[in-house]
């Protein structure tokens, strides 16, 4: 299976630049999710790879072979769109079979492949049904089956779960996860939904304003965002950001922040005199008793969040922090608590919002 590489790929529409000189490699046999807010350029990038949009400048390569001017049908790509593309007059079996027949596969091979995909997608009971009689979620499953049965080398998904109901969403996620492990194709999957991306991806390419911000595994992206955007965009709620002053003239530089009982050292400041500390809400822990590493905080707001966790709004001096704590640790509003933030779980960002390669030390 080929990898996909883009070199300075750019797309302009009149005054808007949708994709800004993107250079990225989508590795072979890997699921890469292009994740970002609406309007970030992810769909445009995908459509250029598919050949459905012409780049303003830049190149696309499949396994180092230039493909920028290749006709879409010559790219050996399967594509699943937000709205299922299926033939209304035909039944489910014929819909899946049609691209296989066009590829001139043998009768036996076609049957085998259909059985395979139908099994994973749980479509056995719908095979004889007419497409027109199916709900939109099942139709989307048929569209997925059609795209993958042909075993193209590259499969592109453009927000395929946006218009399916909640139950089908889980079912399709499950099926896609299974399929992608089995198939070993090169898959690029566009979504704005972080859970979908984190669940399905081997790696995520996070996009913002036409640029790739970071390409990493879901865990690395979540825990070590290389840009404040990733810290903010991922997570519910996203990271806490605290701007602090760096005392200059000393080496290592010292940072004072209300969430730490003592000054914290910053071995390498990269010349910044103000940095932003990023802390995930679940990494703001509440201790049962006083400790050397803890500071006093006041609970100013409290609500219940996903999985029965409490989301607390805490005030420490003039810093306000969100904290996500396990269920059943009831902390009343206006109560004082001891909180601890591990220095190792703090990400440091510079003035331009990019992570500074440095480790905070006690």
């Amino acid at each position, binding site marked *: 299976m080929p990898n996909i590489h883009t070199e300075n790929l750019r797309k302009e529409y009149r005054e808007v630049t949708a994709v800004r000189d993107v250079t990225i490699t989508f590795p072979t046999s890997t699921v890469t999710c292009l994740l970002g807010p609406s309007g970030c350029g992810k769909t445009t990038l995908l459509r250029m790879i598919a050949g459905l949009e012409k780049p303003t400048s830049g190149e696309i390569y499949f396994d180092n072979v230039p493909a920028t001017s290749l006709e879409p049908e010559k790219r050996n790509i399967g594509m699943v769109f937000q709205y299922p593309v299926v033939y209304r007059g035909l039944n489910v079996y014929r819909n899946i079979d049609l691209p296989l027949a066009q590829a001139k596969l043998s009768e036996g091979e076609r049957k085998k492949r259909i059985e395979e995909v139908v099994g994973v997608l749980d479509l056995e009971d719908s095979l004889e049904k007419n497409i027109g009689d199916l709900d939109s979620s099942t139709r989307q499953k048929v569209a997925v089956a059609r795209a993958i049965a042909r075993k193209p080398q590259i499969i592109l998904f453009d927000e395929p779960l946006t218009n399916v109901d909640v139950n089908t969403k889980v079912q399709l996620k*499950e099926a896609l996860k299974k399929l992608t492990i089995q198939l070993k194709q090169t898959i690029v999957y566009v979504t704005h939904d972080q859970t979908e991306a984190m669940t399905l991806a081997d790696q995520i390419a996070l996009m913002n304003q036409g640029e790739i911000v970071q390409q990493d595994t879901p865990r690395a992206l979540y825990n070590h965002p290389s840009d404040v955007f990733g810290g903010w965009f991922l*997570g519910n709620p996203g990271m806490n950001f605290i701007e602090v002053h760096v005392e200059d003239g000393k080496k290592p530089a010292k940072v004072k922040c209300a969430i730490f009982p003592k000054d914290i050292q910053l071995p390498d400041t990269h010349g910044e005199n103000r940095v932003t500390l990023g802390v995930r809400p679940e990494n703001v822990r509440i201790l049962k008793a006083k400790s050397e590493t803890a500071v006093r905080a006041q609970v100013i707001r409290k609500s219940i969040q996903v999985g029965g966790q409490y989301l607390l709004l805490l005030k420490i001096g003039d810093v306000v922090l969100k904290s996500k704590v396990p269920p059943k640790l009831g902390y009343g509003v206006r109560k004082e608590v001891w909180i601890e933030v591990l220095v190792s779980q703090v990400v440091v960002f510079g003035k331009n919002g990019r992570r500074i390669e440095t480790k905070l030390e006690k």
Partner: protein
Amino acid sequence: MKIDSGVFAVIFGPPGCGKSVLLRLLTGLETPTEGKIFMREEDVTGVPSGERSIGYVPQSFALYPHFKVYENISYPLRLIGAKKAEIDEAVKRAAHMLRITPLLEKYPDQLSGGEKQRVALARGITKKTGIYVFDDPLSGLDFKLREQLIDDLKEMQEALGATFIYTTSDTLEAMILAEQIFILDGGRILEHGSLEDMYYTPGNIRTMELLGFPEANVLNGELLQRDGSLICKTKLFDFPVKPEAGMIVKEEHREVFVGIRPQDMKPGLKRQKDTLSAEARIILKEDLGGEFIVHLDINGLRLLSFVRQDDLYLLSDEEITIGIPMEEIVIFSSEDGTRIGRGGG
């Protein structure tokens, strides 16, 4: 129903449960077939909408495209003939609260989606009054935008000290905003109370199902007497039952619903006296970032578990053992859905 003054009250229920109609009745945009509405201890049932003195943010709030932001926000006040100085003060206060002061001289089509939404919220709170009503104002917005606006709404309510009445069908939104919550289902208020009471001691199976993300697991069970104690029998396990105080478990309660929150299906929890355990196969791990929703197959049943990122290591095998603390299991009548007991002897 009664909504206390100065609280953030959320009317929560699935689409079509009647929450919008209820809200329109409160604002006077609909006339009740029967019943009365009191505000500030006065009967307002016959009072026209414009005279009820409430701020209202409808679900879809079109801004006037030919008005600047300032004029859009001040519109409700101009409508009631407020003085210029008063209008100016109210607009500036609302704009400051929603951080849109720099936008006041712009036109709606120069704003982003989130900015437009803030302008609409600001317009809803310009009227100086003690009661503000919001009809599902964040539905359809992407979730990062909602996260910000939810914070804004909480801050607004705290700053104004006013009564906010807010409808939504989104579970997480309801839970994050509500102090007082009213569970609406099929046109009726099932129950109401503080968020924590409703979440931890739901009086009805529907409350447990609706109020919680990921959704609670519900099993079918059967109550029976065994060696003089009350036992609940399910497809997965049998366990002792502690009936609600004052609740006589009668013959007609034999069929029951058994509710278990996903976070109480604990991977790796050691078998103890007060826990049940089950062998499960992991079907899918949904990654929320800081936590995971785990889809399980237990003896042919599809159930959900929930773990925080710290406990991810407990999910490294495909086959895992789940422990369930018995006292977290809630038992409901299958007849009328009311809570009749909990697990534990």
